[in-house]
């Protein structure tokens, strides 16, 4: 099995799609000569030319909308945003146009559009460049949201996303681009809508996605040493959400903790926690614990930013407080 970084896994998926389907093309700011803000598309312009690796002006609203239109016109555009924070200037085109177009037309239109965007904090980019708007977009009917945390899932979910006939927000954890991992030799896909049990356990269910996963893996290790067996679940698909898998796990463990490296208030984990306490209330031995980043704008200063980001000790403390684990 080849080991790839997440960056390489995504590039592999893009190359595959460009090779396999003439209707697939990429567009975004500086994805060509510059190679992309996070170097995901580097080398692709040379290989596929400016029609299929299309640099755009700094006009997110319009090139996102153009992606919707190109998809409605029968192509399969893959749009890159330099940061999911910049989605805000194009939010109307995502939330009102991409998500609603099929519905408003009574099902006449398909929108096979993928919007790729790095997301998350931790790189001292301050208030406007560190956000995680995939948690909002996951609430929008008409959209799918993928958020892989391993090279295996990045490639497998990108394949499914590009095949998908609905708009997909493909949220790439900016801090994990360099993460290495094995990917199967043969062709495989990871379907949207399936969570992944990263580690099996009986005592507590630990739930997160993206940047939160390395923390949970570490947490499970530590708990293991204490004789506590934790089940670690990677949501990886924020919409649709695999509540089946979550309920099943909680049924087994009777305890649940959610970890979000985005702000704690609101967001996707509020949905997870409130759904679990409703659907799995008979099996839960206590409340679903929610850990998240500080409810503050993201600061530039490293100490403050790291203080805001949830860390292993925060998770362990919460588990001992609530479940005395």
């Amino acid at each position: 099995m080849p080991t790839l970084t997440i960056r390489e896994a995504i590039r592999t998926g893009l190359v595959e799609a460009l090779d396999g389907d003439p209707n697939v093309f990429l567009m975004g700011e500086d994805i060509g000569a510059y190679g992309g803000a996070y170097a995901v598309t580097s080398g692709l312009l040379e290989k596929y030319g400016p029609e299929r690796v299309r640099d755009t002006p700094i006009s997110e609203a319009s090139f996102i909308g153009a992606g919707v239109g190109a998809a409605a016109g029968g192509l399969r555009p893959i749009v890159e945003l330099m940061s999911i924070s910049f989605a805000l200037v194009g939010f109307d085109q995502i939330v009102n146009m991409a998500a609603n177009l099929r519905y408003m037309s009574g099902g006449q239109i398909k929108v096979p559009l993928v919007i790729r965007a790095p997301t998350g904090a931790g790189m001292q980019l301050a208030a406007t460049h560190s956000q995680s708007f995939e948690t909002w977009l996951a609430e929008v009917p008409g959209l799918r949201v993928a958020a892989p945390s391993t090279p295996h899932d990045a490639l497998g979910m990108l394949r499914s996303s590009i095949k998908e006939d609905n708009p997909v927000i493909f949220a790439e954890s900016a801090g994990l681009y360099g993460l290495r991992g094995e990917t199967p030799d043969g062709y495989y896909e990871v379907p949207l809508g399936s969570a992944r049990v990263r580690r099996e356990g009986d005592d507590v269910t630990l739930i997160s996605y993206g940047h939160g996963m390395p923390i949970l893996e570490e947490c499970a290790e530590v708990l293991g040493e204490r004789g506590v067996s934790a089940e670690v679940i990677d949501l990886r698909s924020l919409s649709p959400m695999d509540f089946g898998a979550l309920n099943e796990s909680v049924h087994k463990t009777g305890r649940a903790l959610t970890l979000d490296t985005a702000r704690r208030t609101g967001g996707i984990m509020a949905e997870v926690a409130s759904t679990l306490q409703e659907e799995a209330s008979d099996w839960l031995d206590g409340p679903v614990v929610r850990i998240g980043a500080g409810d503050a704008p993201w600061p530039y200063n490293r100490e403050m930013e790291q203080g805001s980001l949830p860390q292993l000790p925060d998770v362990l403390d919460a588990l001992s407080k609530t479940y005395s684990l």
Partner: protein
Amino acid sequence: MSAELQQAVQETVGDPAVGPAAEARVSLNGPVSRQEMLALYRQMHLIRRFEEACAENYAKGNIRGFLHLYIGQEAVAAGTMAALKPGDYVVTHYRDHGQALARGVDTNRAMAELFGRKTGLSKGKGGSMHLFDVARRFMGGHAIVGGQLPLAAGLSLSCLYKGTDDITLVFFGDGAVNQGTFHETMNLAAVWKLPLLFFLENNLYGMGSSVDNVRAGGMDFYPIADSYGIDSAHVDGMDVMAVREATMNAVDRMRAGGGPRFIEAKTFRYVGHSMADPARYREDSELASWMARDPLKTFPKMLLDRGLATEPELQAVRESADQEVETAVRFAERSEKPSPEELFDDIYA
């Protein structure tokens, strides 16, 4: 009607005695038969009557939500659509009935959509502001001001990418020009040489706001196209033949790979912005001056004056259009309503 067009009509039709059968070569873009002119008249009358029927049924409560009528602007829809091919895409805003009808969507299903019925173009999910008919490449009907422009850019990009000579015509209003998407899409279309025809229906008001209160650079918008290197034209939106001609000129060049173009048509909505708007913000005299040039009066008069049509012919045209609208209303009334469960259909493909 433009000078050379009047000229042309004179030359070709000449003595009215030549009578109805005469073919009138009146366009720079090939012949316009009297049949075609009668069709344009019918189109405009159909739209007018359709809109009147909408108002009646809004009063009856059969149509609800926001309803924006096209009364006064019929010449624009009829003239532009006459210049397009079936493969071309059309995108517009919420004031979309006229353009949808002119594009040839089924009148029954259009009315049914306004009634919120299962048989509606969008199965009752879209309503007045969201008419779609993908078979006719009529891609909506969009309710966010300026939101339709990027979508249209993408549709035109798909044609460019596939190498067809289909173009995309996008309608927008004077108010929409003040949205950032207008500027961004103009730039995108110019940089990428998209086969996108920006068609501005300047009816001088955006809701209650007169252009000169909200826009720098005055009443004429077409000069702004220059700063993007986009060729523009302006045309009298009350003159269906002039609109048709201007659109044809633009479209011909675009099919030849000329990139985007911009057309501004000055026109006027006789009614309020929506059913909620009594339009107190404008003078009766202003309205009167435009109604004096009502295409539903001037165009048939021209046809009669030039012997291109007889009163009985025009009468017949009107009656068949009135009939079509009546039928549509009955169709809508009798159509089944969607069941509440259908709420969850058509969200995902």
